[in-house]
């Protein structure tokens, strides 16, 4: 049974000007980092959101369009529905240093992953990229976890000036002793993919495609021969070699393939 469970919003936190965290009155102990749920706004729509924390179920959302805007208008106590968790999450390499690379709202699942890495005693570095210092989410939370931080902003207002994927090149641990776990805009993931293949670094990337069912039957999330909702959203870099659509095309609600901006 995967009818949405209707629950109330317990708490709302502003992470940045455009990123907001929602804590729901729900527990999903079985969820793994990188897995997602389908979040239902009755009367609006239902869309995929990664689990930022399973207990209580927490989502970190970037306002980008109609659905996420409607969500950001919700207040504590309002009702939302959720179903899941779905998909294949990250699996930590226990003998490799962990390098987590986040762009934009990719931070949610990576924070979840970081907490897991830390509890397992895996040395962890988190690289956060954003437009400006004001757009960097979760910095305090990561500090509190005691992980190494690499910050990058396009305008240099904080940390490295430029894309986070360049910033990590400088890092001492950007080598095959480490494993990279990345989530963010697809162009960033393409850069991480290239980096991993060049330096023989094991990597896992969390992708996004338009989703409807979330459980592998509508075909809407197809990327080449993969169903992102089921085979992903997390893929090993090897799986992404030579794909036609990775970094290039994604489907719209009609199923039409559109170029990735």
């Amino acid at each position, binding site marked *: *049974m*995967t*009818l*949405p469970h*209707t629950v109330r919003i317990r708490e709302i936190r502003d992470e940045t000007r455009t990123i907001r965290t929602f804590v729901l009155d729900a527990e999903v102990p079985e969820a793994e980092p990188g897995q997602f749920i*389908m979040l*239902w706004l*009755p*009367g*609006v*729509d*239902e*869309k995929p959101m990664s689990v930022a924390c399973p207990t209580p179920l927490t989502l970190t959302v970037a306002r980008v369009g109609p659905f996420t805007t409607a969500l950001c208008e919700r207040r504590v106590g309002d*009702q939302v*529905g959720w*179903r899941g968790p779905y998909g294949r999450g990250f699996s930590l390499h226990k003998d490799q240093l962990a390098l987590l690379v986040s762009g934009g709202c990719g931070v949610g699942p990576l924070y979840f992953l970081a907490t897991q890495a830390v509890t397992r005693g895996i040395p962890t570095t988190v690289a956060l990229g954003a437009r400006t210092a004001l757009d960097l989410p979760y910095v305090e939370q990561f500090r509190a976890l005691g992980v190494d931080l690499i910050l990058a902003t396009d305008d240099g207002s904080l940390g490295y000036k430029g894309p986070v994927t360049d910033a990590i090149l400088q890092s001492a641990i950007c080598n095959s002793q480490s494993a990279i776990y990345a989530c963010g805009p697809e162009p960033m993931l393409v850069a991480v993919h290239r980096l991993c293949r060049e330096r023989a670094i094991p990597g896992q990337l969390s992708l996004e495609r338009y989703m*409807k*069912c979330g*459980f*592998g*039957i*509508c*075909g*809407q999330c*197809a990327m*080449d*021969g*993969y*169903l992102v909702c089921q*085979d992903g959203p997390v893929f090993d870099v090897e799986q992404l070699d030579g794909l036609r659509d990775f970094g290039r095309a994604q*489907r*719209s*609600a*009609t*199923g*039409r393939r559109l170029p990735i901006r």
Partner: protein
Amino acid sequence: MKPETAKPETPSAVDISATLCGVRLPNPTVLTSGVLGLSHEIMVRVARAGAGGVTTKSCSLKPRPGYPNPTILDWGPGLINAVGLSNPGVEVMVEEIRAAKEELAPLGVPVIASIFAETIYDFGTVARFISEAQPDLIEVNISCPNIDDRYRQMFAANPYVAGQVTRRVKQNTDIPVLVKLSPNVTDVAQIARAVVEAGADGITAINSLGPGLILDIETCRPVLAHGTGGVSGPATRPIAVRCVRDICQAVDVPVVAVGGVTTGRDSVEMILVGATAVGIGSAVYYRGMAVFRQVCEELRDYMERHGYGALKEFRGRAAAIRF
């Protein structure tokens, strides 16, 4: 990609191939329309996973985004869906079908192109269009239960209208035509006769049941964004079997039996009432893409236990029994 890829067919004495309107299927399991049939890569993957045929998502003249989500949910005994016939439009599907055919020809797995339209006239246009891709069969979806007011009633609800749609499609293509019927009528046999008289080469039945309605009692809203939706999966199987039985007794064309088929047992049940092939949709959710190979293996086991060498040896056996 996953275990289900390109395993060689388990060798077996029994022959489970089927012939549907002159088109050969290596086995009787067909991916039904609307499930995973959006892109050629996935259709190829489903074929490698064991499907004997694949049907594309129903496509229309223009692209359709469909309804907002939730569009597909599992309510326990089955699925309920109101996708709203979202599709990229016939132009795009022509390309997907071309690409699919190219890769599936070597596997000997045919491609069935499902089409629909909002007017009787447009059905012909879409049929002409899609024929450019040379699908092995065309399936005409006149039975989607998720009807906007615009459509008023399903084409499949009225024998005259159903016949007209069929005629119009036949005038616009030389490819064999399956017409897909709805269980949501009082006498499905009557509709079957009408479409066969109008020239249908075969029938696919059933489309999803209902529509049904499920509410979220906390918000007092339907769980599907559209409100009502078509019911499918195990919950619908007895209705589907009865419809297929009624159709096979009423007309003399091959029938693709769809509705709740999840196991080899279910496929046998459909063949016993006269089905030539079985469509599988919701079961992809319950058993994964491996369902096609599993159903075929379960079907073979049954045939071996009963000493059948081919499907025709027991097809229609139950239809014969008076009841």
